[in-house]
């Protein structure tokens, strides 16, 4: 039997992403991220760019905003609004699922 190699990675949140890492993971420039943070569309707790760190949720959110902006040539605020609604929808669906009101 062949021994299969197992790849281990790092869990984001335990190790957070820097601005550059987040931008690269979204295939955008760092300026794209900075602009959306300054407009209050992406979360970050600190006012100092150098200490900005991003979580898994930030990564998912940034990719979603980026995709909506690109697919529909949407204004960043509109993409963020749609993203807010998608996130809210997912939370509610999760509750409905747990309450047995929807399947899957």
């Amino acid at each position, binding site marked *: 039997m062949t021994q299969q190699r197992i*790849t281990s990675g790092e869990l984001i949140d335990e190790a957070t992403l820097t601005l550059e890492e987040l931008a690269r993971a979204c295939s955008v420039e760092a300026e794209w991220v900075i602009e959306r943070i300054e407009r209050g569309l992406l979360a970050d707790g600190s006012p100092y760019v150098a200490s900005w760190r991003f979580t898994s949720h930030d990564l998912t959110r940034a990719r979603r905003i980026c995709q909506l902006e690109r697919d529909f040539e949407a204004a960043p605020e509109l993409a963020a609004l749609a993203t807010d609604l998608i996130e809210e929808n997912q939370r509610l669906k999760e509750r409905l699922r747990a309450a047995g009101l929807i399947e899957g």
Partner: protein
Amino acid sequence: MEFKDYYQVLGVEKTATPDEIKKAYRKLARKFHPDVSKEPDAELRMQEVNEAKAVLADPEKRLAYDQLARQYRSGQDFQPPPDWDAGFEFSGGGFEEADLGEFSDFFANLFGQGGRAGGRRGYQMRGEDRHAKVVIDLEDAYHGATRAITLQVPRLDAQGRVLSREHTLNVRIPKGVKAGQHIRLSGQGGPGMGGGPAGDLFLEIHFTPDPLYRVEGRDVHQRVPVTPWEAALGASIETPTPSGVVKVKVPAGSQSGRRLRLKGRGIPGPEPGDLYVELEVVLPPADTDRARELYETMAQELAFDPRQRRGARP
């Protein structure tokens, strides 16, 4: 390899204007948006649509594609003729590796000239980061697991054509992972160019939907059915949980909806979550004479009117 009719994918005429192509694309992007679409193969269709748009919305690529398309029908077996793209220079030197990972072989063969175009001396570029979703059971988050992930990896052959190859990775899913959390695998993303380092692969964790559990961060909620006498008199019951069977003490006088917190029994981690057990009182059916008799005895002997407290109106 089959010839792809990108016009058919977008549902537009071959004579469609750039504006019509853009409109058709947006319409489909809305229909197949993976976050809202109810279509079962939304993600796959969205990939096709993105691919078709990448070609038809780019005047140079569209022109080159149109020349080829005159000789082929959709679904027909297809090999790109040598130097089919002679005379065309695709801006940006073909496509990003990340695109190639998500697009079809057909596309990669036609437009995946990144290697050829990117042959500039001394030019180094880090590979693109890639993303994939991994679905695990909630139990896997409690104990850790290993999952095989299969990815399409573009690579260049000796002629500089892009071929796609399947690459399977056995990935350790660490204990304590939450839904929506990412695992970063360094160097497992797109290959670098000119000796540049490879990108990273981000795996986004999803849980298999389970009607028994609701997960919020590391907290897990579950409903547990109990008998009326267990709820009324109190009891020590056993219930299956993601971490195995546990004993739960039901306090006397419990009602349906009462939540009991089992500290630290949620998803493990630096700050382990809690398990919330919500009691659900289930009545035994009155389907035998004896059962009916017991209910009648209760009706006669217990002075109980659940509507009294609410000030029930007639």
